[in-house]
């Protein structure tokens, strides 16, 4: 599959908030009520289209358990976007957001787009964190906020795509240096300077991007 850009995403947050379920919903459009514990990291990928361009999202779904914390720290490097997830039915996962944010800011590049996600919005009756609180936290720390449900798929698509759109806009504004892979953005094969030598596959349709 050819793509114009590749964005590296990471999903972070406490254990059991539904990180893996969000990814599964986004990549496979299905929901698993019982999910194995993530060991280290799992990967997912999906193509999306923004502004007529094919963008491959390479998603790193990290382990939330504390024992893996220092391992997952090495995954922050080179991520263009991060989904910081908490569980609206568990107050403590919301309280830990500051630590996660500090961790993310410290181990990633400063331009990383962070989206705050309050997951499990289908469990309204067990809600412990108000939507307004999430919004306030996001406003205070300059994040984008959304409530999602990996079970009903509400807002899941939007969360991933809006983040991508924001990254895309930043590229257009020239905030991201797309030639520096440390920013978590890779150009697709047909956009590389060595383009002329590569045999053109069926991907010629997406050529002519105004990225350079």
């Amino acid at each position, binding site marked *: 599959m050819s793509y114009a850009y590749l964005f590296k995403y990471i999903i972070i947050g406490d254990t059991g908030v539904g990180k893996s379920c969000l990814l599964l919903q986004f*990549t496979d459009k299905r929901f698993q009520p019982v999910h194995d514990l993530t060991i*280290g990291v799992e*990967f997912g990928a*999906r193509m999306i289209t923004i502004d007529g361009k094919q963008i491959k999202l390479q998603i790193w779904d990290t382990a939330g358990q*504390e024992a893996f914390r220092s391992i997952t720290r090495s995954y922050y490097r080179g991520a263009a976007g991060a989904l910081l997830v908490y569980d609206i039915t568990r107050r403590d996962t919301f309280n830990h957001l500051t630590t996660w944010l500090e961790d993310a800011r410290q181990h990633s590049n400063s331009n990383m787009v962070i989206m705050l996600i309050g997951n499990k919005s289908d469990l309204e009756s067990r809600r412990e964190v108000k939507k307004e609180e999430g919004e306030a936290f996001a406003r205070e720390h300059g994040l984008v906020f959304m409530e999602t449900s990996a079970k009903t798929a509400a807002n899941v698509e939007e969360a991933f795509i809006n983040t991508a759109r924001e990254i895309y806009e930043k590229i257009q504004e020239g905030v991201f240096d797309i030639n520096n892979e440390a920013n978590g953005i890779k150009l697709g094969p047909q956009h590389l300077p060595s383009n002329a030598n590569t045999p053109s596959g069926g991907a010629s349709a997406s050529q002519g991007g105004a990225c350079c």
Partner: protein
Amino acid sequence: MATHGYSGNSFDRWVEQSSIHGTASDNTMNKMQHQFWVAKQTILRRLGKKEDDCVVASDAELDAKLELFLSIQETCSQLYKVVEQYQERLQVLAQEENTFGHFLRTNGELDKTCAGKMMNAVGKAMIYSAQQRVSLRSPLTRLYQEVETFCQRAVEDTSYTVNEMEKCRNDYRGALLWMKNVSQELDPDTFKQLEKFRRVQSHVRASKSKFDRHKLACLQKIDLLAAARCNMFSHGLIVYQDNMATFWKRTSSAMTTVSEAYKGYQPYEFTFVKGLTYPSLKLAAEKSSSPEPKL
């Protein structure tokens, strides 16, 4: 539109399958690599190098429980020694008391004065007290035996479980070190790297589930040990407490009888230390002239 890298559930299943049915050389290689990181972890630990804070913090509950176990282990062996010394000394004290009582009685019978009678009475009380004191020994011996069994069986058994758990913990932490190492330059779109990561991941998963099992066993066993200890004390100490109360009640009543019988000042005719004769008589006169209620 959707496309997958080397990921997803079906891939994971395939990886696990292939790692189970992998070729022998592949498995040996993996095992060796795992052992390398386990050895590294062991050395780091032995040298007292600072371990990963997050990993240590994630075991906080377990470590707190281990503290409890160490305290039980230590205090039990101390108690074992203390009870042994205590009952030995109790025995010695009772013997001394008995000897003292006999000494007073023999000398009291030789002395025909009032002092002789007093010595005789006190001597009898002492012998009685010594006999009563010995009755404290049997519950103590019982406690001593129970603490001994507890130390040798329950604590030993738990200590074995703890050691097993520590081995698994070391294995798990070694696997985590390995995973951290392969995570440094991980790129999911490079098949070789991802494959390697998957192999490490399956090791971490296996050692984690093993460690989790042992951890649970440890937590439960230590809780049980603490409960068993309380149980042992509440049974063993009740008899001791009762015997102690009876001992004090009986001896104190015996001593009170003696003290009541010889209330006030008893004059004594000094035959050797003549200098004391006059003050003694004077004191006796003062005592008898003062209004004192007689029983």
